[in-house]
């Protein structure tokens, strides 16, 4: 439980009890609908039995008028009658296209500098959205860096479209949904957008270019939320600003935007020319909309997809290299999202008037409500992504018929970066935008669950609102089940056994930083701030000297919010996590000094423990990272290199609702500039 004032404590306790009891009933196998039909729960989620069970939903005790009780809010979503009845979709792979493809020839073929020629068919906006702001070209900006040194080998097209017939489950109680998503690149209307978007599969040293078209409907056709201005970020490839899809580089309806990637590891134009440091290889990435002020609603609308990158070690073939389970048969991406459905219409809803964060009561995996996946009795690699918008998960494997059975598995990568060697865990905690690659050996699992044949990926993190998780983890079997794995027959398994502790990449060396800078992530007069300032596309807050290294101390001074902090450009490493218990209590609005959070704060590491060399850092976070979650009252010190490219990138909170409310800054990297501001 988070530290709370005495004043609120009783209410907090009652609310928690109500939730816990409801969860227990629901997880026992009842759906909300079943309870309602039995007369034990009202439509608003109120359990009828008395004593601590009466809190209507996991929300604040607001004195809203009665009209607002039918809100798009936790506890109000229509639910399907049954879960685990739909197979988990696996997104199709995006096909590459010849340069002669009409999409790639539209306006002009991809070129080093933006195609700013006016398109008479599109209100004379430039053909391409690159190198513009507010639709006005900025000549000479955003030409591709290293475009001629690393010629494009693979071309792709994606068209961003609306799809009003999207199904999140087969149950007809839940209507077709309007989503915005990415299609497979074809111009035909039958090439519809999906959620998640197609998986893009690349290989290092094979430079690629993606042309994205904005073919969204008009603003007034947004279904209540979403803005049709697009910027697609590849999270977190080592990318120049012009192709990074940052918050300030969006393009309009009818425009296209060419995104070019050198396909080289970090260090390719500095420490490790010409191909980069193999130990900086990334594997599990994702792409998503990043339009400033509107990222939460746009990603929530469906603008998210996986991007996987292989190389000579992480090959996608279990008989070569690191011998990780073969893609795509035994290497499967899973994006988790929680949604709200509007009680009035059954449609996915999003409250654009909220700025604290959104917690859903409908759990999706790869775009389906609580699906199942048939698996064989062998090892699988799952690439688990928290697609947001605001929920934190702690994921366990649970035998629903025997929830107390402890089922271990292996973490092999954090934020898409292979660890030096696999770590055995019983759970992992994943905040928005983080990725965990895990290996589940269903042969081993089967030996633990005996005659049972199903295990489920269960979220046991208790979270009351969008501010952040509590410190409580639900009892086994009482959390939210996300995916059901149905274990079938044994098949050949040539993949490496993580128990043999194979070596993957070594961690890049941590060198003496040129400077240590401090950043405090706080809330001030209802506004999100970093060092007291706000997001501003016109304000590059500080300059990092190109090809140097720095330490950044990221501070969360609050004991009632958590923030997953994402930094673009390169991966960083967490050097320490320091719990500042009590240091900031005077700022929290509560006078009592906290002695301990209790429960599971800070996160104890999922069974793999805390590092002996990096204070407070869980062993599964002794890794390269691109999202560092700031827990309550915490300082996290991260080590960061800034190599190869010049330009501007953001650092921001990836609770997308906080991000949209200005918890973001832009920094730039330039050669021969010395900026010694330690609190920029």
């Amino acid at each position, binding site marked *: 439980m988070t530290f709370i004032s005495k004043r609120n404590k009783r209410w907090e306790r009652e609310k928690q009890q109500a939730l816990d009891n409801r969860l227990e009933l629901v997880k026992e196998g009842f759906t909300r609908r079943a309870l309602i039909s039995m007369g034990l729960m009202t439509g608003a989620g109120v359990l009828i*039995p008395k004593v601590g069970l009466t809190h209507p939903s996991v929300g604040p005790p607001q004195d809203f008028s009665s009209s607002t009780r039918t809100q798009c809010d936790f506890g109000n979503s229509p639910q*399907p*009658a049954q879960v685990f009845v739909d197979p988990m979709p696996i997104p199709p792979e995006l096909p590459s296209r010849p340069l002669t493809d009409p999409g790639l020839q539209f306006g002009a073929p991809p070129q080093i500098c933006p195609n700013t020629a006016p398109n008479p068919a599109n209100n004379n906006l430039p053909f391409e959205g690159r190198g513009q702001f507010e639709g006005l070209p900025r000549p000479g900006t955003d030409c591709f860096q290293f475009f001629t040194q690393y010629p494009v080998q693979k071309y792709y097209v994606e068209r961003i479209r609306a799809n009003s017939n999207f199904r999140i489950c087969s149950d007809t*109680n839940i209507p077709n949904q309007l989503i915005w998503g990415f299609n497979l690149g074809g111009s035909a209307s039958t090439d519809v957008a999906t959620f998640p978007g197609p998986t893009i599969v690349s290989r290092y040293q094979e430079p690629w270019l993606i042309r994205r078209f*904005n073919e969204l409907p008009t603003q007034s056709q947004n279904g209540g939320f979403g803005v049709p201005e697009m910027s697609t970020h590849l999270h977190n490839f080592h990318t120049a600003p012009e192709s990074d899809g940052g918050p300030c580089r969006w393009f309009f309806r009818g425009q296209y935007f060419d995104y070019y990637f050198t396909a080289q590891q970090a260090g390719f134009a500095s420490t490790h020319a010409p191909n980069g440091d193999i130990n900086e290889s990334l594997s599990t990435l994702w792409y998503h909309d990043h339009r400033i002020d509107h990222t939460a609603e746009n990603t929530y609308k469906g603008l998210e997809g996986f991007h996987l990158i292989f190389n000579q070690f992480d090959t996608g073939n279990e008989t070569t290299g690191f011998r990780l389970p073969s893609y795509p048969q035994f290497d499967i991406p899973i994006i988790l999202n929680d949604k709200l459905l509007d009680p009035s219409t059954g449609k996915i809803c999003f409250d654009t008037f909220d700025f604290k964060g959104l917690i859903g009561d409908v759990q999706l995996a790869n775009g389906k409500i609580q699906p199942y996946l048939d698996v064989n009795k062998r090892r699988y690699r799952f690439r688990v992504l928290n697609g947001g918008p605001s929920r934190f998960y702690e994921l366990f494997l649970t035998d629903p018929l025997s929830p107390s059975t402890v089922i271990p598995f292996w973490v092999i990568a954090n934020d898409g970066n292979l660890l030096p060697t696999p770590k055995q865990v019983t759970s992992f905690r994943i905040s928005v935008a983080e990725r965990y690659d895990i290996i589940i050996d269903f042969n081993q699992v089967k030996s633990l669950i005996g005659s049972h044949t*199903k295990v489920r990926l269960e979220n046991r993190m208790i979270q009351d609102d969008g501010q952040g998780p509590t410190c409580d983890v639900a*009892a086994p079997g009482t959390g939210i089940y996300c995916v059901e794995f149905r274990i079938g027959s044994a098949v050949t398994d040539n993949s490496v056994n993580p128990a043999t502790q194979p070596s993957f990449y070594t961690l890049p060396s941590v060198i003496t930083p040129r400077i240590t800078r401090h950043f405090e992530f706080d809330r001030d007069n209802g506004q999100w701030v970093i060092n007291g300032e706000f997001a501003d596309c016109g304000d590059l807050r500080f300059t990092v000297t190109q090809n140097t290294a720095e330490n950044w101390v990221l501070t969360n001074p609050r004991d009632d919010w958590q923030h997953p902090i994402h930094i673009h450009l390169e991966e960083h490493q967490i050097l320490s996590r320091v719990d500042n218990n009590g240091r900031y209590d005077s700022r929290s609005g509560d006078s009592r000094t906290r002695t301990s959070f209790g429960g599971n704060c800070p996160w104890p590491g999922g069974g793999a423990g805390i590092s002996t060399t990096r204070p407070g850092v869980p062993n599964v976070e002794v890794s390269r990272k691109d999202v560092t979650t700031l827990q309550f009252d915490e300082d996290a010190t991260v080590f960061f290199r800034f190599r190869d490219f010049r330009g501007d990138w953001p650092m921001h909170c990836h609770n997308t609702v906080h991000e949209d409310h200005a918890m973001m800054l832009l920094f730039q990297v330039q050669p021969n500039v010395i900026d010694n501001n330690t609190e920029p």
Partner: protein
Amino acid sequence: MAKITRRKWLVAAGTTTAAVGVATLAGKTRLKAQEATPASKHNYNYKNVSPRELIQRRHLPNVELITQDSEKVRFYDDLIKDKRVVIQFMFAQCKDVCPIITHNLVKVQRLLKGRVGKDIFFYSITLSPEEDKPKDLKEFAKHHGAGWTFLTGKPEDILHLRKSLGFFYNKPKEDADRNNHSGMIMIGTEPLTRWAHCPGGSKPEWIATVIRMEMDAPLKGSVNGVTQPDVAFSTKRPVKESKQAMPAGHMH
């Protein structure tokens, strides 16, 4: 807090008949719940209501407010419907953040080059309706050179409006601090169901840019010849707006 088990809960619940019933059923149904069964009959009474109307019902109450010129206006009908709006909360005695933000908005008004009161409407709503009478707001506006509409009203209406617009904290203590609601400004184009926020403490140039982007971006592109019609400004100007004060002379 210790997680309660169902057993503990049953004890706590006084083992009412209903609770026992649930427990028994739960035990029996647990296995079945995992099996696929045909979707049951449609049980939800969905209505064909537009997203715009849902937002109006939930967030844009039609409460009666009073301008600094003592005119009675309806929040939704007169101030929001079919308009591009910028909404902000303040109070006249505010010494903390409001003066800075009002000062910023005065600069933003100038940066928007005559659009405020014409196709973009600014509203400052008091958080202290008990204290802030129309004349106080008029004085505040004059003092700051703010040429837009300031609003007060019945305390319960203002509270309802504030919470409907999303300006509230979960912790009562934080919620009671008026300064906590004075920072963020809202930017909306009501007929296009497009809403955004910008910190009022940002640089005026950036606030003006955000407002311009919010208001103008929907009209920029077209796909297959389909462009967003400018529905926001196609309706006639409301009577009330003709009385918006011009910026005070000393601010030129």
